[in-house]
């Protein structure tokens, strides 16, 4: 395995930082429409998502079903609220659709729906399913000799599902070098800190034992480091699937939410909404 050295210019970095800020402020705004939302796990993946969508994934917003597009699946579907603003910004669907978030009949719910949301490559919501789905996509793309890659975003709590390890075994065994999994290691799940419920570390040794290459991303909010790690996973030379273990901070960007499992789900009343927005826009 080799490491690529994609580096961002100052301008590119500023642009991506602005997109990440947009993701977070939109998460706060859309959660206000819904009346509740997954702040913590959406904020932890903002930099990962913008590096993927604005820098690395080959997708065509005007042709969402393009056969050779890179696929992106949300294992941790409850953070779809962080993906929708990006898809709208890229032009997959009108930005005005965001204003219908979670309202009766909206295409945009708490979890992504591939039949309703242009740009969503698969539906999810039940934790643990989408790595298997991604294995299937990678197998099909390889069979069809497509150059497309599959990226699956997983939670660290999600690593407890047995199906993750069934998928990991099959991907490793079949040497699916067109598959990249990202584990958003934000260290919390719904009830508590992950290590207080079911500690799945060391994930690097586990994935290696299942036949994967492992890329460590020590700061999942440093855009240069994020871009380099994902570029390595997607474009570096690998003869097997790659997992990016991304160390992130739950609730990143809003001081009172950071590292707190309590903000896996929540709601901000008007004063705290302003407080959060002020911090995010600073």
């Amino acid at each position, binding site marked *: 395995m080799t490491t690529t050295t994609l580096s961002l210019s100052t301008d590119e970095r500023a642009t991506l930082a602005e997109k990440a800020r947009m993701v977070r402020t939109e998460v706060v705004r859309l959660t206000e429409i819904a009346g509740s939302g997954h702040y913590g796990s959406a904020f932890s993946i903002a930099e990962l998502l913008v590096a993927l969508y604005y820098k690395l994934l080959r997708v065509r917003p005007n042709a969402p079903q393009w056969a050779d597009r890179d696929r992106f699946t949300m294992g941790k579907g409850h953070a779809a609220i962080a993906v929708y603003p990006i898809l709208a910004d890229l032009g997959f669907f009108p930005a005005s659709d965001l204003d219908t978030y979670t309202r*009766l009949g909206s295409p945009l719910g708490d*979890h992504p729906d591939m039949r309703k949301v242009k740009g969503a490559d698969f539906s999810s919501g039940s934790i643990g399913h989408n790595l298997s789905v991604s294995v299937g996509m990678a197998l099909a793309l390889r069979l069809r000799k497509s150059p497309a890659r599959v990226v699956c975003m997983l939670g660290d709590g999600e690593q407890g599902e047995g199906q993750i390890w069934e998928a990991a075994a099959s991907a490793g065994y079949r040497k699916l070098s067109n598959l990249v999994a990202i584990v958003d290691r934000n260290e919390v799940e719904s*009830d508590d800190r992950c290590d207080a419920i079911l500690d799945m570390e060391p994930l690097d040794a586990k994935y290696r034992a299942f036949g994967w290459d492992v890329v460590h991303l020590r700061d999942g909010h440093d855009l240069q480091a994020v871009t380099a790690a994902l570029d390595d996973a997607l474009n570096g030379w690998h003869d097997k699937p790659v997992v990016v273990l991304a160390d992130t901070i739950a609730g990143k960007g809003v001081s009172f939410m950071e590292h707190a*499992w309590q903000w896996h789900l929540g709601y901000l*009343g008007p004063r705290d909404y302003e407080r959060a927005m002020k911090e995010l826009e600073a």
Partner: protein
Amino acid sequence: MTTADTRPLLESTVTAEFDERSWDMVGSLALSKQLVSGEVLIELARRRDDIVVLTADLGRPTRVIDFGRAFPERYYNFGISERNMVGAAAGMASAGMLPYVSGYACFLALLAADQIRLDVCYTKLPVRFLSTHSGLTMGFYGSSHHATEDIGAIRSFANLTILAPIDAVALRQALVATVDHPGPIYFRLGRGRETPVYDAPIPEYRIGGSHRLRDGTDATVFATGICVDFALQAARLLEAEGIALRVVDAYSLKPLDADAVRGACLETRHVFTAEEHNVIGGLGSAVAEVMAEVGTATRLTRIGMQDAFSILGPPTHLYKNYGLDGEGIAKTIRTALA
């Protein structure tokens, strides 16, 4: 006041400095007032040492965390691994424990269906499932989090009893009344934010029973879950129009109270079922089976999800959209009887 109401929400990050409308995971607990499993099991566990509680990262929203605080050594949070948890519950039961497994209906009944079927039902072990957030109550979380198939999926598992306590009073009664039942029981519960129906325990409560909440001679509604309250609302609306509706809380979904269904066929003109579930496989199917075997000429109309996945939306909007709320049920009945 319940235990949960009086205990300060110690772990919440939402302090007095926050906006009074803000809440976090800990705060959301306080909203699900009908989910009293945790506190009832604390009382039961003080008298017997075989009760254990299991969950899969849903101890807070299902409120069994209350039990975990009182009996930390008898509380097992398995993390997000439902199938492992149900298998482990079967193992615990085989070793003499009485496990109560708490989670969302979609993940217990559907994700872990084979573990329920083989490890718990086939072996006929005393495992209890506290299956919350059934039906459409997860609203805009979407179909992954709805459970409008759980009754249908597990009703065909031999040895399994299915009870549906509709509020805190009924849940307390169901848990206490069945604590010595030798086989597995699936308790189909809501989100816990429902309007309570009962202010006193149900008379003559039994597995295989039902409770007539209101009598009438024109038609009967067998309802379950939140639809019991909606059917009562419909009855009040129709009363003003001269239609007398019998409303039955079909709290025992399996075995069903076949005598109550027979009685409804003999004594009222039309039978309706109302449920937050696909009419295929659910209460509607169960009542239809009894009616077909009785050989009655009484008509049946099944109110529920008509073999469809729900669209997205807040729960109250979905109930209205699918004609499950009081006005929707009244409209279906009015039309059918006209």
